[in-house]
């Protein structure tokens, strides 16, 4: 289920604020597993499955992905772009990108002035093969967003492709919808995480859960010359303790540790030095919501070759199984 869903989800287009297609795919996959599905005003997709305990548990996986937004079309038909989320311009060079309508383009840069390693987003352009502004404008509008075109490949348990951040979290959340849970279960596929975690807070406000667990990827320190980090692929999902957006509170931390210990699930401990997740905004919603996060280790985040180990994602599902069954 995880692998099949991951293939479908990574193939679905859905940059921040333009999540329609991935939301459609998630709707198709979640519909048989829940009682109600709704989309809120910010575009969060919320799946609901009633329980009997009178308590509410929320899972949250952002469904949006990073991209490049068209800001101008020049007279020769090349597209100029701005970043949607944390695109590294250097890593975007010489990559294929896709628009919502299936149109493909190639990202390149103004090579007269700079070396590839020096390129800024202002130096990038997308070549869609158009001959002139009119021909380009017939296919693309200002404000359209392109995402990395990088279909998922599997080798052993390793998955590589674009948008694993955070379609792997979405796939884990979908699997969680099949797990027994005595509580009202709300699975939020949040919008606009990559542009400042803008979707999850309003979703949490609307739900008012007793506990929220976010699902997202986290960088690793297990490849050559990587920044120092103890996180590695294949050693299990990670318990988030700290990132730029949140310090996970001691009660939530303990709850998650105890659930993992009781179910015998190996996990890693994550102290992330940069970047944030939906966990932070959820925790500060309303009068405060106990919020934690299970992270899936991922190499080369925000590139077209994001790489995860499916065993870690499977571990996350098992861990959620233990958390979902606990009293709140």
């Amino acid at each position, binding site marked *: 289920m995880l692998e099949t869903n991951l293939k479908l989800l990574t193939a679905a287009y859905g940059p921040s604020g333009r999540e329609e297609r991935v939301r459609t795919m998630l709707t198709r996959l979640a519909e048989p597993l829940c009682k109600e599905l709704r989309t809120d005003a910010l575009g969060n997709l919320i799946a609901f499955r009633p329980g009997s305990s009178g308590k509410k548990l929320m899972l949250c996986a952002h469904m949006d992905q990073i991209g490049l937004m068209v800001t101008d079309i020049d007279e020769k038909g090349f597209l100029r772009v701005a970043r949607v989320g944390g695109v590294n311009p250097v890593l975007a060079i010489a990559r294929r990108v896709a628009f919502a309508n299936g149109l493909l383009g190639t990202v390149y840069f103004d090579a007269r002035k700079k070396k590839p390693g020096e390129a800024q987003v202002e130096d990038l352009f997308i070549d869609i093969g158009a001959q002139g502004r009119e021909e380009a404008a017939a296919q693309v509008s200002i404000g359209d967003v392109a995402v990395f075109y990088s279909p998922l490949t599997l080798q052993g348990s390793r998955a590589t492709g674009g948008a694993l951040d955070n379609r792997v979290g979405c796939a884990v959340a979908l699997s969680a919808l099949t797990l027994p849970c005595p509580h009202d279960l709300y699975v939020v596929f949040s919008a606009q995480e990559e542009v400042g975690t803008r979707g999850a807070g309003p979703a949490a406000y609307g739900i008012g859960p007793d506990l929220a667990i976010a699902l997202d990827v986290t960088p690793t320190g297990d490849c050559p010359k990587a920044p*120092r980090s103890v996180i590695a692929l294949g050693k299990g999902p990670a318990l988030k303790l*700290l990132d730029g957006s949140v*310090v996970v509170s*001691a009660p939530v931390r303990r709850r998650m540790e105890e659930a993992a210990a009781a179910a015998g699930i190996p996990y890693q401990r*994550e*102290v992330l030095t940069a970047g944030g997740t939906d966990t932070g905004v959820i925790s*500060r919603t309303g*009068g*405060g919501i106990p919020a934690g996060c299970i992270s899936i280790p991922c190499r080369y985040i925000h590139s077209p070759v994001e790489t995860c180990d499916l065993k870690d994602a499977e571990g996350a599902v098992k861990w959620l199984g233990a958390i979902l069954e606990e009293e709140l």
Partner: protein
Amino acid sequence: MDRLERIRRLSAAPGVTGLEEGVAAEVLRQLQGLGIRAWQDKAGSVFGQVGEEGPLVLLMAHMDEIGMAIQAVEENGMARLWKVAGVDPRVLAGSRLLIHTKDGPLPAVAGALPPHLQRGEEAPRAYAWEDLLLDTGLGPAAKERVQVGDVVTLYPHAPLALLDGRLSCKTLDDRGPLGALLDLLARLCQNPAPCRAVLCASVQEEKTGAGGLTAPRQLRPDVAIAVDVCHSGPPETEFRTHPLDTIVINRSLCLHPGVVNLLETAAKKAGVEYELGAGMTASGTDAFHIAPQAGGIATGLLEVPLRYMHTSAEVISARALDDLEKVLEAFLRGLAGESWKEALCWKD
């Protein structure tokens, strides 16, 4: 319990941003010791109320402290650090620290390659996080005692009495003013003010402002005063700093001019000399977070000057803490009747 004892206990209680359980328990103990209603909210902030009638006044001082977390434990037993909030790695080498492990607190020292051994590109310079090692004395066995994510605080010392009523220890930001608020509450218990004064020891001021954001949404106070520290410079750093003994009434743009007026009036009535402070939005304090919540809250900010902020040798003045209490007490006693409503109206 006198104020110094309150501050001593508060300063020593562990409560790094986001993980305030230790200091929250201490604040709850002190509030319960006053025999007043005390509670904790979902975000973790601790509250105590004195008075059952009159306007609801939120008095907020944050209880979280700057601190670090273990990022990795090397094979040789040395631990690597990362900031949770507010710590400057340049001042850490040579410090005593405390690791809060699953089995209890573990003393350690922060070390780095000494200048004698630095060569070439390592020529003497300020230490950064990656230069620092946390030494528990243990070798590889440290891996069994210390876990990634364990919180690290500055080592608690009893407050050092400097000359002329000055006091030095860790975490006077913001537990010095918090101790003063608790002292004030004790006095209000004896001699009530015409309002409902709610003390909030808030969480996460040093990182996310979570306490400042969440507490007012639940309480919906009529007026809020945040109490925090500001910078007092060593001699010859006058820009944007204040004398150590003189409290500051902040009139940044996010603060309500009516509240600023009430605080100035209270200071004059109490015979307290003060300085005005200004900035664009008072960001970096709970006041910034409180003001736009729950439809907007009339918010003020009182500041106590402090030297060497975010180090284990913060310095504060007992006279300034006295003055803080006097101004707040005069402010609370001035809220009788309905005139405070008029004072908080915008006068265009």
